[in-house]
C-alpha cells in the first residue's frame, strides 16, 4: 500500500488486474481436463462398439478385438481389493473415532497420511516380493492385495471423518438404554453414518480403479480369459498402457477406447458419490 495510499483508482485497478490474472490461471488449470476429454471422445468413441465389450484382444496389427477380459479383470481386482481394504479400513476408522486415545489416534492418522503419499509403484514391487516370488506366479490375488493396501488408509480416514460427525447424543441415548458399546457402535453409529462410509469406499474405489503401477508386477495382464485367481489376470489400465506404448495403430485406437471406458467408469463412481451426498459437505 505504500506510496499509493491516496491513489484509490490505481489500487482498485491493480485489484481488478489480479482478479483477471488469477481467473486466467484457473482456466489454465482446468484446460488439460477439457483437452484430455475432447481427445478421449474423438479418438476413443469410434472404437467403442459391441465387440469391444464382448471380445478378447486381437493379435498385433489385426483389426477388431476388444477388451472384455480386461474389463472383467478390473472388476475382479476391484472386488478383491474391496475384500481386503474395506473391512480393514472401516473397522480401523471405527477404532479411531470410537475407542482410540488421543495419542494413539494421532499416530495412526499420521501414518495413514504418510501411507497415502507412498508412490503406488512401491506397492507393486513390495507385493511382488511378498506374494509373487513365493507363489512363483503372478496372480489376481497379488494384484487385488496391492490395490487393497492402497485402499486401507483412504477408507480409514474417510470412515473416521464421517463417524465423528454422528452426534454424541445418539451414542449416549443408546448407552443409557443399557445397550453394549459395541452394539451401539455397529447398530447406531455406523448405521447413521452408513451413507458417508459407502461414499468413502466408492471414492477409494474410483481412486484405485485407474491405478496401473501396482498391477505391473502383481497382476501382470493377460491377453486371454482367465478364471483362475492364482494366475495372471488382465486389467483395463494395464491393457491401455501396453497398447499405448505398442507400435500398432489398431492397438492405439483400442487404447483410446479403453481409456474412454475407464474414465467413464471412474466419473460414474464419482458422480454417484455426489448423488449419495446431496447437500452434505464431504471432504474428498
Amino acid at each position, binding site marked *: *500500500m505504500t506510496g499509493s495510499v491516496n491513489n484509490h483508482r490505481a489500487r482498485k485497478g491493480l485489484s481488478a488486474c489480479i482478479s483477471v490474472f488469477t481467473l486466467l490461471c484457473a482456466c489454465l488449470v482446468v484446460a488439460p481436463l477439457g483437452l484430455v476429454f475432447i481427445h478421449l471422445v474423438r479418438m476413443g468413441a469410434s472404437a467403442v462398439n459391441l465387440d469391444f465389450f464382448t471380445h478378447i484382444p486381437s493379435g498385433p496389427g489385426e483389426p477388431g478385438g476388444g477388451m472384455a477380459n480386461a474389463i472383467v479383470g478390473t472388476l475382479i481386482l476391484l472386488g478383491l481389493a474391496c475384500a481386503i481394504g474395506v473391512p480393514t479400513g472401516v473397522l480401523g476408522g471405527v477404532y479411531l473415532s470410537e475407542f482410540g486415545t488421543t495419542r494413539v489416534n494421532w499416530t495412526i492418522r499420521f501414518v495413514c497420511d504418510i501411507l497415502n503419499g507412498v508412490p503406488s509403484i512401491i506397492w507393486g514391487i513390495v507385493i511382488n516380493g511378498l506374494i509373487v516370488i513365493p507363489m512363483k506366479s503372478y496372480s489376481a490375488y497379488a494384484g487385488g492385495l496391492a490395490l487393497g493396501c492402497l485402499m486401507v488408509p483412504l477408507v480409514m480416514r474417510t470412515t473416521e471423518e464421517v463417524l465423528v460427525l454422528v452426534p454424541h447424543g445418539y451414542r449416549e441415548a443408546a448407552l443409557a438404554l443399557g445397550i453394549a458399546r459395541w452394539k451401539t457402535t455397529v447398530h447406531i453409529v455406523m448405521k447413521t453414518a452408513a451413507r458417508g462410509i459407502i461414499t468413502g469406499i466408492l471414492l477409494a474405489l474410483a481412486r484405485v480403479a485407474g491405478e496401473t503401477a501396482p498391477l505391473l508386477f502383481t497382476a501382470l495382464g493377460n491377453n486371454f480369459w482367465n478364471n483362475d485367481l492364482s494366475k495372471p489376470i488382465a486389467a483395463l489400465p494395464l491393457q491401455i498402457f501396453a497398447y499405448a506404448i505398442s507400435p500398432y495403430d489398431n492397438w492405439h485406437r483400442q487404447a483410446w477406447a479403453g481409456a474412454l471406458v475407464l474414465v467413464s467408469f471412474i466419473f460414474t463412481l464419482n458422480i454417484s458419490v455426489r448423488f449419495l451426498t446431496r447437500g452434505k459437505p464431504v471432504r474428498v
Partner: protein
Amino acid sequence: MPPRDKPPAVVPRMKPPSRLGDQVFSIFTLCMAATVLVLILVVGWQLWSGSRMSIHQFGFHFLVSSDWDPVNDNYGALPFIFGTLVSSVLALVIAVPLSVATAIYLTELAPLWLRQPIVSLIEMLAAIPSVILGLWGIFVMVPWLRVEVLPILQRYMGWCPLFHGTIYGPCMLAGGMIIAIMIIPIITSVSREILVSVPHLQREAAYALGATRWEVTRIAVLSYAKRGIFGAIILGLGRALGETMAVTMVIGNTPQISASLFAPGYTLASVIANEFSEASDLYLQSLFEIGLVLFCVTILVNLLAQLILKTFAGATVKQ
C-alpha cells in the same frame, strides 16, 4: 451338576451386561487400525531385505555413480535421482504459481456462483488416472511440444543451456509438464482449504482499514496462510517424486544426465516400471534399492508436509 455348598444370598434380577463383547470389539478394531503401522513396516523391511546384496556390494557409491550397466552388472542410481529431481522441480515451477493463484481466485476473488463448478472440475482432473494422462501425453502433448513449442523455445531461448540441443519429442520438459498436471489438483485443493481456514476477522480488519480486495488477500490472508501453503507445496512435491506411469510414457527413458530440458531423462519410479519384470539377481536387487531410495525420500517429504500442515491447523484452532 456339582453340589453347591450354599446358594447365593441375593439372586440378582438382571445380570450386569457382559464387558466381553466390548473388549473383543475394541481390540479387534485396534488390530485393524494398527494394520497401517504394520503395512509401513512391511514395506520398509521388504524393500531393505530385497536390496541387501546391492547395498552390500555398492554401498554409498550407488547413490553417486552414474553408471547403469546391466550387461556388466554395475549399477549407480545418479541419473535416476537427477531425473526425478529435475522433473519434480520443473513440475513445481509450473504447478505452484498456477495452483496458488487458482486457490486464491477460488477463495477470495471469484464470484460465488463460479466457485463450486471450478472446484468440481479440478476434482475431476484429479480423478483422471495417470495412465490416461500418459496416453494423452504420448499422442497429443508430445507431438504438439515437438512441432509447435520446442522450436520456438529453441529459437528465442537457445542461448540458455536449458533450451539447447536436439529435439526428440519425449523429453524432461514433457515429463515435468505431465507431473505438473497431476499435482496441480492436490496443491490447489490443500491451499484452498488453508485459505478457507483463515479467520474472517483477519479479512474484516483489513477491509476496515480501506484495503482493496487484492490488498486484503495479500496483507491479511496470504501472510497468515503462507506456512500452510508451503506445506501444500511440499505435499505436491511428495506426489511429484513418486509419479510413475504418465512420466514413464513421456520422459524418454534414457539414463543420462544432461543440462538440456529437451533431452530425454529417466526417473526412479519409471526405471522400476520399465525394467523390474526382466531383472534378476543383482539387477533386481538394485531396482529394489532404487525403490528403497524412493520410499525413504517420499516418506521424509510427506513427513515434513504433514508436520507443517498439522501444526498450521493446530494454530488455526487455537485462534
